[in-house]
């Protein structure tokens, strides 16, 4: 804490950025940017005002969600979402373990490291929807495109965090295993794996939760899941069905989060 004493000897809060020139440049930069950005916004307020009525209807629809009139569509969509989530998470974990091992600088040689990091970067940079659009064009409509999309997205997430975890492991434990004359395989299973396993399981549970959330939108581009049902409901302005689907998604995500919280707490 710098006690910036002014002439009146009054204490003032120390500023967050010490360099005053830098501070003013940043503030002005932000202001100019905001002015430019708002300048390029063209909001049709009349349309927004008209829409408020419909928005209110949507909020009212949350009070009386309609689970029944499209029951079979909702059940089909939800099962497909769940199935895509489970398979893609499993497949994603299986693929991301070798890639995560390869992307850890302390156990992988440089060429392998670069290739694996490249795969992770591509998977992380492209949004699931973009991947899904391309894969639907390649594989055709249906849950298979969604399954591949989610598996691919899982790799970027899980392999990156796993690699960072492996890089953070305690060297001495791995060293001790190596000193017993263990092969590379034994070294990884007994020296590295026990150190990263609890977090890997936690992350996998978290990814299961994310994959379910993402599977809800893949249907918009024809890659299967509840998203298609939701999109149809919006297109037909059936807000009561849409709100029922949204409530179901929220409840399932909450349950998954609660479950993964319990599992992670038990592991640590």
């Amino acid at each position, binding site marked *: 804490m710098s006690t910036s004493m002014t002439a009146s000897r009054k204490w003032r809060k120390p500023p967050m950025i010490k360099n005053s020139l830098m501070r003013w440049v940043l503030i002005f930069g932000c202001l100019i940017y905001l002015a430019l950005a708002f300048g*390029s916004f063209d909001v049709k307020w009349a349309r927004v005002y008209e829409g408020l009525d419909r928005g209110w209807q949507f909020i009212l629809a949350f009070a009386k969600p309609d689970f029944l009139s499209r029951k079979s569509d909702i059940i089909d969509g939800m099962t497909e979402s769940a199935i895509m989530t489970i*398979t893609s998470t499993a497949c994603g974990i299986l693929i991301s373990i070798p890639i995560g091992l390869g992307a850890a600088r302390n156990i992988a040689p440089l060429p392998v490291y670069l290739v694996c990091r490249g795969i992770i970067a591509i998977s992380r*940079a492209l949004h699931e929807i973009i991947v899904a659009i391309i894969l639907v064009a390649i594989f055709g409509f249906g849950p298979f495109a969604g399954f591949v999309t989610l598996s691919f997205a899982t790799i970027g997430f899980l392999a990156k965090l796993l690699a960072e975890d492996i890089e953070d492991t305690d060297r001495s434990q791995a060293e001790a295993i190596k000193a017993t004359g263990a092969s590379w395989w034994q070294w990884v299973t007994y020296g590295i794996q026990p150190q990263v396993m609890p977090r890997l399981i936690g992350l996998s549970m978290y990814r299961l939760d994310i994959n379910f959330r993402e599977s809800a939108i893949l249907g918009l581009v024809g890659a299967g899941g509840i998203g298609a049902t939701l999109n149809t409901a919006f297109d037909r302005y059936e807000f009561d069905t849409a709100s029922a689907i949204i409530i179901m998604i929220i409840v399932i995500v909450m349950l998954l989060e609660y479950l993964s919280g319990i599992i992670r707490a038990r592991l640590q």
Partner: protein
Amino acid sequence: MAISIDKNSQKIWAVRDRNTQLTRWFVYFVAVTVIMYCWQTISEATTWFFVLDAPRIAGDIGGRAMPPKWPYINELWKPLWDTINIATIGTVLSLIIAVPIAFMAARNTTPHHIFCRWPALLIIVSTRSINSLIWALLLVAIIGPGIFAGTIAIAVRSIGFCAKLLYEAIEEIDEKQVEAIKATGASRWQVIAYGIVPQIMPSFAGISVFRWDINIRESTVLGYVGAGGIGLQLKASIDVLAWPQVSLILLVIFAAVILSEMVSAKVRAAII
């Protein structure tokens, strides 16, 4: 750690004892069964002919997409600018809403445990579980297509994320500093301003930059449902099968996301 006994009744070290091992096998068995069942369902819903044909199709599309149509980039600057604006202003809006919600949700600052904390947690969970694309879909239906719907969608989706991380940061603060400010006779607001805010400022900055980076990625696809940004061009190009344009747009998105990730990593490294 356990000991197992082999045929010659000699003790051998084993990683797990028998019961743990059996339980593990059982869990694996159930997991594999469930996954195989799910896989079978997907397999039935798939036209395998298309999948087997996929390498050829992929090669075909790839061949058409290369080389990217570079002159088209002049039409992409405006959508790109819109995309960045959606992400940035959406993040700013969400932070404005997330801060009070985070203070209401944190155990140590909430005004009331039931009437403030639970509604705040409900807002956090419900905004977090719904993808920004669904919010965009909804807002496009309500307030019409355009950047505004996209910005609000990004803002709503980010509230839960930012508020959750922020309230966890508030719960982890050092209570001694708060106590010290309280001991000077500070009011409730002064305690927040001088005792809590300086402690959470670094994580606040980190969270906002982190979310901004995620939002750039999310806003690239909002156009797909009509909520403005570069996704609009992407959808238009895919709908008319203009693959050279698609590949250029993908390159631009890739560059924008990588750049924003680098900026965010730099800023976070500088803060922490």
